[in-house]
């Protein structure tokens, strides 16, 4: 039987897949989007920490030296993210890293990307928070920064503030339709123009097509919705253009597995992975000091005790994003909520550090906690090992997986961590305001923002993609997800991933004819639902 065919086959439905899917479908191309995870809508999300609920659509993937959190559903990580939507600082695009030369393509600067940032901000849409929208934890972080002589400001969020109930359950989806994931803009937009989304279809490999006029054949397994380790069938679709947007943890694995069939891969596929310099730490506040030093009171006799209240990300300081500072010494500090499922992480001063009597005492003070994410400049030291037989990693249990990624922390990255830790501690512990707790239960990086595992660049030796997102040596294969972002960003990366996907979509619309796909240029952003 002949294979199914399509103009454009997109692997993945997160930021990187949904955006080109929308524009190419709107331009008239036949678009099929394959998503390895299930499709959930608002009524499927729960406010529950029971194992078997949220981990149906979010995975924790343990590599060597790193634990990565990634979405696994239609909408990808946009369904599980904390919606912080920031433009990357200008200096990021000039980074040289450990290469000693510019890492980003010359064609991409903050200035050139601003146009695409604006489009995404309008399409999602992104909201600017007033101080009245900032929950207690964000306010407390701001007040602590201010008292320590630092600036601090609300973070732009992809949240409909009129629907948000400040319930702090973004990590399990959003039951109030307030979080603006891809499910509310680009995906329904793409489907309105005929794009077909197939959930529970896990792509395994890309190989040459056999049908005249089609360039690539993409093979997949149909995944059992009740057991993601089992498949219910398989198939192959041939396409003229393939867009790989399986996420930073998925894209390089599919390409590695395809190397033999496609006659090799650029050496940068599966190398130079960045954890966005993510570093998580915690503060436990002295409620009396919150009142006496900062003058804060949320109700009579209660200064804070509000860790579980609000939106998970609200305020941050840009004071350490000085473009004049040397590379690997610049970072952002951002206030963060962490659900109690990660309460093993913070350490205490005395052995046994992350468990025992003193740790229990810290747990009992949970409502007075704050988590902080430090986003630094890392050295792109992540490397993917050989791919597993199927899938992107080996599933061990619900939402738990073992991956091939190895992340040996480079001295430059550690230097940034040390500076960021010291800065956060100096702000939060000033005059005994809080105690500061770094992660002690593991020596692995805790990464929610994986990037760069198949990155763009101008140098073929150190980049897998050219500045148009096209995979070197494989015309018609494009990578448009977080894997294409060349370096850590010092801010949450979703808006930059989306802006680059907007830019890539524009390029694809102009070049589709080269690959036998007729599209008319459509410059209209989707209408948010």
């Amino acid at each position, binding site marked *: 039987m002949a294979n199914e065919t399509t103009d454009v086959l997109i692997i993945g439905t997160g930021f990187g897949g949904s955006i080109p899917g929308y524009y190419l479908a709107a331009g008239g191309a036949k678009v099929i989007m394959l998503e390895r995870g299930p499709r959930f809508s608002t009524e499927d999300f*729960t*406010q*529950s*920490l*029971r*194992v078997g609920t949220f981990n149906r659509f979010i995975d924790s993937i343990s590599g060597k030296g790193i634990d990565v959190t990634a979405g696994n559903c239609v909408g990808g990580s946009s369904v599980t993210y904390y919606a912080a939507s*920031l*433009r990357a*600082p200008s200096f990021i695009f000039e980074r040289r890293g450990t290469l000693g030369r510019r890492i980003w393509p010359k064609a991409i600067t903050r200035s050139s990307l601003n146009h695409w940032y604006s489009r995404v901000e309008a399409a999602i849409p992104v909201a*600017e928070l007033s*101080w*009245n*929208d*900032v*929950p*207690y934890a964000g*306010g407390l972080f*701001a007040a602590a*920064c*201010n008292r320590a002589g*630092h*600036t*601090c*400001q609300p*973070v*732009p969020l992809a949240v409909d503030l009129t629907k948000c*109930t*400040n*319930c702090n*359950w973004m990590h399990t989806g959003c039951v109030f339709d307030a979080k603006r994931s891809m499910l509310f803009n680009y995906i329904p937009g793409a489907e309105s123009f005929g794009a077909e989304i197939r959930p529970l279809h896990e792509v395994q490999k890309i190989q040459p097509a056999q049908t005249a006029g089609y360039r690539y054949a993409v093979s997949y397994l149909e995944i059992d919705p009740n057991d993601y380790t089992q498949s219910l069938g398989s198939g192959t679709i041939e396409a003229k253009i393939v867009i790989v947007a399986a996420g930073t943890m998925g894209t390089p694995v599919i390409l590695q597995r395809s190397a033999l069939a496609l006659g090799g891969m650029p050496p940068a596929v599966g190398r130079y992975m960045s954890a966005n310099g993510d570093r998580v730490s915690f503060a436990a506040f002295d409620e009396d000091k919150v009142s006496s030093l900062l003058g804060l009171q*949320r*109700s009579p006799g209660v200064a804070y005790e*509000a860790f*579980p*209240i*609000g939106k998970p990300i609200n*305020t941050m*300081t*840009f*004071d350490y994003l000085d473009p004049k500072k040397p590379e690997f010494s610049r970072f952002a500090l951002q206030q963060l909520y962490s659900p*109690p*499922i990660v*309460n*093993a992480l913070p350490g205490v001063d005395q052995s*046994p550090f992350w*468990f*025992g*009597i003193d*740790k*229990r005492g810290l*747990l*009992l003070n*949970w*409502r007075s906690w704050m988590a902080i994410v430090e986003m630094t400049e890392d050295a792109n030291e992540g490397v993917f090992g050989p791919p597993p037989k199927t899938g992107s990693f080996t599933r061990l*249990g*619900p939402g738990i997986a073992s991956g091939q990624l190895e992340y040996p922390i480079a001295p430059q990255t550690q230097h940034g961590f040390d500076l960021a830790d010291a800065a956060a501690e100096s702000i939060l512990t000033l005059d005994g305001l809080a105690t500061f707790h770094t992660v002690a*239960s*593991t*020596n692995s990086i805790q990464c929610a923002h994986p990037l760069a595992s198949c990155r763009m660049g101008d140098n073929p030796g150190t980049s897998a993609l050219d500045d148009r997102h096209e995979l070197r040596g494989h015309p018609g294969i494009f990578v448009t997800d977080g894997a294409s972002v060349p370096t850590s960003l010092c*801010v949450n990366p979703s808006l930059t991933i989306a802006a680059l996907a907007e830019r890539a979509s524009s390029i694809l619309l102009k070049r589709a004819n080269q690959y036998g796909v007729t599209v008319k240029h459509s410059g209209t952003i989707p209408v948010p639902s």
Partner: protein
Amino acid sequence: MRVKNKSEIDRIIRREDSRLPPSTEKSLRLTRRKLLKSVAALAAAWTISPWKIGVPSALAQGTGPAGTTQIPASDSDADPTTLTLEAYADTLIPGEKRFPDDVAIAGVVTGPGAVQGGAIDMMNFVGLGPTLALLALQINAAAIAYALLNGITLDPNLPPLVSLNFAQRTGLLVELLALNAPGRGVYSGLAALCFVAFNTAGYLDTVVAIEQGHPGLTAIGFPPPNSDGKWRFPDFSYQQVLAKPHPRSKNGNPA
């Protein structure tokens, strides 16, 4: 309960060997191997007939304070696997004794700990039930080795881990859970389940757990939902300008 298989005993011995510095003299290495083999055999024998086999006097030369604790009547229904895993959980997040003669819980704090938080329920909920006996065996083998190497006398009437006092249990877990310890994965996985049980009641829907007054969620102060079972916080903000923005920022973005 089946006897610990040979490959498992050999694995523990190899692991212990790997902890020795490369410069360790062969004679000392062999002595340690003999000791650990004895430990493993003892652990295996204990699994055949728990409670009835004492530590051989030649091996029980320590001066530890374990004493001669008797099996409490109120724990008589508890199997050694459960007692061992409860002691493991209690060492991670300690709680108060559930009854006066509770031997699994050391009772070093007041209030609930991981045991009351449902650590064993959590282990069963994720499907570990069939392997718990083996996990307890592995922990107890390590406990015997720890006791021997630290001169601690074990109570023959209790599972080895339970026989240790809280400080000793903590010392053992520090070794098992050291960041670079060989075989850490199993122990840290179990520890993660204990933390998830106490901090999230991960074997229950959170609304149900709150309704049931889950000890861990109550202890950390996890807030209750509204009457419809959903969380909302109408009062969520200080509603004050609390800091100045960065002078080069624009619309909340860095320059």
